[in-house]
């Protein structure tokens, strides 16, 4: 019964709770039991708050019995990367330095999810300070992949990827500064959205690179992701960078026909480091879109090394602005791999950082006009290589490890600098039994279009229904 409850989608489960076919308490109990059983294998939780969640579920059921529905997530358990603040509660950010940090305010994104009725099951493991694409964490233990625990769960939203794929929760928040939602989504066989910069408030979370940080969800279906995104999106006076644009009804547009739309395949850059096995899976997914009536169009993209380099300048500068004091006073409290990522920022001239921000709008315009004048959406690999093992990507692996780790974000990093939305969608498995995915990219604020295409793909494929066989 528990498996049946947890294998359902978020949207299906919310419907069953609303119709009183299931109680929130039943669902939350199933989630807690699975989380406790799998924690020794996956290590995806930093804080599992079972008692608190159960009390909230009882309250949700009592409210529903009185006819009060809080919102479209009423009674549904979610768990989130442990970097979203709740006033008076601990938020670790996956670090030793903030292991006992108590925030004095709430994250807007998280508050909106709670106000919509979701239940907070706990804070999930993550790369220290959201830095790193693998899921290694010396402070809280490495996170493991539910498809095979010897493999990485991805990062930096490693615990969200692992917990959602393992059917512990129906979805959860990650954050994406260079691929930290999309990489673990591809690696765990999930849907993950990097939102347009400014779509979702960043108020109340530990920043990494404040002009490139974005908030988004990891889920098993596109429909689930559309629901969570709709709840969170929109203007927040507490984050002045949020857009005032009206938030579309994403769910209402999911079933719009995709026939006749143009899907771009990049002729340069994105496939430069893609392995043949991953490329074959990309071709299969393109064939599915072709069968749906879309026109597949080869398109030349601008030199993506440029925005990737610019994103690195911005990243190291902004990260050091946040971490400067700790880097001086407590350098030994960082993992060496994380500290080394920030280190170039100590020596980056301020004028170069500002210049990298200044040319951002031009590069966004160049990219948008070059690509989206020819196609509606661009399709790229989500990850360029089969998922590596934890051992292959560990600091101890030596030669070749830095290149492999850098390769994980080959297709993702530039989009945070450009600000455009990108949706990771699972599209099969490589020979090692681990998932692979593709990425859909669109114009700023074109999330509805990306959801539409991703949903159309999931309506003719079943990769998102595959369940990892994990022995607890």
């Amino acid at each position: 019964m528990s498996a049946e409850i947890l294998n359902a989608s978020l949207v299906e489960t919310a419907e069953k709770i609303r119709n009183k076919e299931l109680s929130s308490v039943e669902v939350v109990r199933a989630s807690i039991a699975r989380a406790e059983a799998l924690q020794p294998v996956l290590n995806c939780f930093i804080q599992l708050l079972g008692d608190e969640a159960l009390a909230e579920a009882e309250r949700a059921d009592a409210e529903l019995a009185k006819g009060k529905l809080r919102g479209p997530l009423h009674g549904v358990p979610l768990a989130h990367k442990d970097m979203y603040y709740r006033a008076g509660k601990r938020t670790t950010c996956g670090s030793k330095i903030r292991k006992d940090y108590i925030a004095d305010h709430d994250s807007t994104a998280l508050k909106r999810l709670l106000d919509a009725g979701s239940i907070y099951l706990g804070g999930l493991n993550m790369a220290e300070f959201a830095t790193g694409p693998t899921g290694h964490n010396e402070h809280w233990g490495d996170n493991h992949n539910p498809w095979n625990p010897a493999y990485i769960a991805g990062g930096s939203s490693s615990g969200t990827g692992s917990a959602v794929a393992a059917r512990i929760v129906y979805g959860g928040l990650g954050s994406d500064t260079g691929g930290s939602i999309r990489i673990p989504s591809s690696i765990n066989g999930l849907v993950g959205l990097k939102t347009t910069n400014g779509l979702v408030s960043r108020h109340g979370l530990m920043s990494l690179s404040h002009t490139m940080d974005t908030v988004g969800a990891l889920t098993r279906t596109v429909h689930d992701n559309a629901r969570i995104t709709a709840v969170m999106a929109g203007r927040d006076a507490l984050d002045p960078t949020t857009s005032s644009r009206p938030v579309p009804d994403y769910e209402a547009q999911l079933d719009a026909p995709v026939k006749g739309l143009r899907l771009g395949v990049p002729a340069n850059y994105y496939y430069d480091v893609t392995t043949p096995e991953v490329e074959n899976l990309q071709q299969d997914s393109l064939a599915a879109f072709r069968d749906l009536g879309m026109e597949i169009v080869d398109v030349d993209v601008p030199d993506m090394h440029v925005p990737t380099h610019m994103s690195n300048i911005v990243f190291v500068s902004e990260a050091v602005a946040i971490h400067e004091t700790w880097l001086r006073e407590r350098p030994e409290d960082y993992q060496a791999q994380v500290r080394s990522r920030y280190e170039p920022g100590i020596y980056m001239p301020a004028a170069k950082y500002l210049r990298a921000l200044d040319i951002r709008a031009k590069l966004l315009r160049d990219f948008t006009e070059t690509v989206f004048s020819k196609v509606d959406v661009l399709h790229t690999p989500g990850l360029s290589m089969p998922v590596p093992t934890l051992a292959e990507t560990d600091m101890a692996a030596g030669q070749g490890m830095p290149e492999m780790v850098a390769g994980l974000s080959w297709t993702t990093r530039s989009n945070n600098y450009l600000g455009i939305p990108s949706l990771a969608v699972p599209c099969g498995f490589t020979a090692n039994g681990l998932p692979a995915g593709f990425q859909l990219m669109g114009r700023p604020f074109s999330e509805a279009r990306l959801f539409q295409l991703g949903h159309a793909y999931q309506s003719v494929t079943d990769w998102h229904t595959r369940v990892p066989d994990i022995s607890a």
Partner: protein
Amino acid sequence: MAGITKELILAQARVFGGTLPTAERAEELAATLNTLIDALDEASAGLPLEAEPSHMARTLDELAGD
């Protein structure tokens, strides 16, 4: 060429404090910074200086689709 050198890194590191890079690491850092800055200088040649983040936010909004 951006002109960041190992010596410059090591001198700044002594001022900054924290963990001092080895000479080998300082060489790596200099090479990384030079690559990034050279790419920036090439990409931004001739562009006017404008304020962030409003310009970026405006451009995102202007280019929005769907």
